[in-house]
């Protein structure tokens, strides 16, 4: 009786599995092969993400495959990579949502120097992040309790607080690809977060920084950043708001 009841239950709960080919851009600084594609075919399940396929390869096929990941749940922003030509988080991209009849290409994000396989040097990215002073600068007397803010004041910069610094936006920007001198969308988003914060007093300094030659004016409004953002931040809109603030000379 129990055996009969269990069988259809197991069928219903069965997760479909499929073969998928991962075409990964490999690069090892020590050998002279340069960047080259390597295909791995793995059996994955319908609930698996690209990150799971990379784990499968690293843990069971080729331990030398190198990539960053920390939380693996779309919060830490470590595993941004170019999947089928688009910047995504490997941990938020389900394999079943991609075309698994063809190989899935996985490359490191563009515009930053590759260190090994899918790992890039993030320092240039964080350098421009640091330059916009991404911390609260408040003048006047230190209050003895919290710095209060109304719900409307908080709403003003709510969108840009969601950034996880994964660099998907900056490394999708064609202006950043050319010479890497442009501040990049991520730095501007994080400047926006403080410029429009009612508790912050250094908005004008940040606007001055972003009014430089490599600042907001290099943005060509191609919307690549908005499309790439795994948190759904309206990046191009935030940049446009900073441009408006620079023109008006105040927040």
């Amino acid at each position, binding site marked *: 009786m129990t055996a009969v009841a269990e069988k259809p239950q197991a069928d219903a709960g069965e997760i479909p599995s499929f073969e998928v080919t991962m075409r990964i851009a490999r690069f090892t600084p020590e050998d002279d092969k340069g960047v080259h594609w390597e295909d791995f075919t793995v059996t994955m399940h319908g609930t698996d993400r690209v990150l799971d396929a990379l784990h499968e390869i690293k843990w069971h096929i080729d331990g030398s495959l190198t990539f960053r990941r920390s939380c693996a749940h779309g919060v830490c922003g470590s595993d941004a990579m170019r999947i089928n030509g688009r910047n995504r988080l490997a941990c938020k991209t389900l394999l079943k949502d991609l075309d698994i009849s063809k190989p899935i290409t996985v490359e490191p994000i563009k515009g930053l120097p590759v260190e090994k396989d899918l790992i890039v040097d993030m320092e240039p990215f964080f350098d421009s992040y640091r330059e916009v002073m991404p911390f609260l600068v408040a003048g006047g007397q230190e209050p003895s309790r919290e710095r209060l803010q109304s719900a409307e004041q908080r709403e003003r910069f709510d969108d840009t607080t969601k950034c996880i610094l994964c660099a998907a936006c900056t490394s999708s920007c064609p202006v950043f690809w050319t010479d890497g001198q442009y501040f990049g969308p991520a730095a501007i988003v994080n400047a926006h977060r403080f410029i429009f914060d009612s508790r912050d007093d250094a908005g004008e*300094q940040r606007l001055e920084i972003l009014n430089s*030659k490599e600042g907001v004016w290099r943005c060509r409004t191609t919307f690549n950043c908005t499309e790439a953002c795994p948190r759904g931040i309206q990046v191009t809109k935030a940049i446009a708001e900073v441009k408006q603030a620079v023109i008006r000379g105040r927040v």
Partner: protein
Amino acid sequence: MSTSTTSIPDPTTRYRRTGQRGLNAEMLSWMFMRGSGALLVILVFGHLFVNLWLGDGVKGIDFAFVGGKWASPFWQVWDLLMLWLGLIHGGNGVRTIINDYARGDRTRMVLKALLYFAVVVTIVLGTLVIFTFDPCPVGAEPSLLPSFCEG
């Protein structure tokens, strides 16, 4: 023993991006592109409407038509504005493209030099033509000239 003390930067000093030049030039250029773009839409469509739509349309354009138009200061200013704004707007657009896509410093410099040269030559030539244009050249066939040339 060298005193290798780790220096902590003064927290009140501002972060400085290396090679920060041309402070507000980029902002002015950005605003100019928006302003001139809007104005050019009016100028260009007005120009097309008057030349190709009114009167005989495209068949009416000849030496006399152009000579007649440039006899009026209104059309001189209209065409001058169109020439200057069009070339500076276009030239500035190509300048940003060169800045974005030319990788080497020398390539960038050569391309920009060529661009500026072409823009300046065209603006000077066009301006000269608009203001020194003679609608009634001596010894020309009178039927080809604007009507006000007789006598």
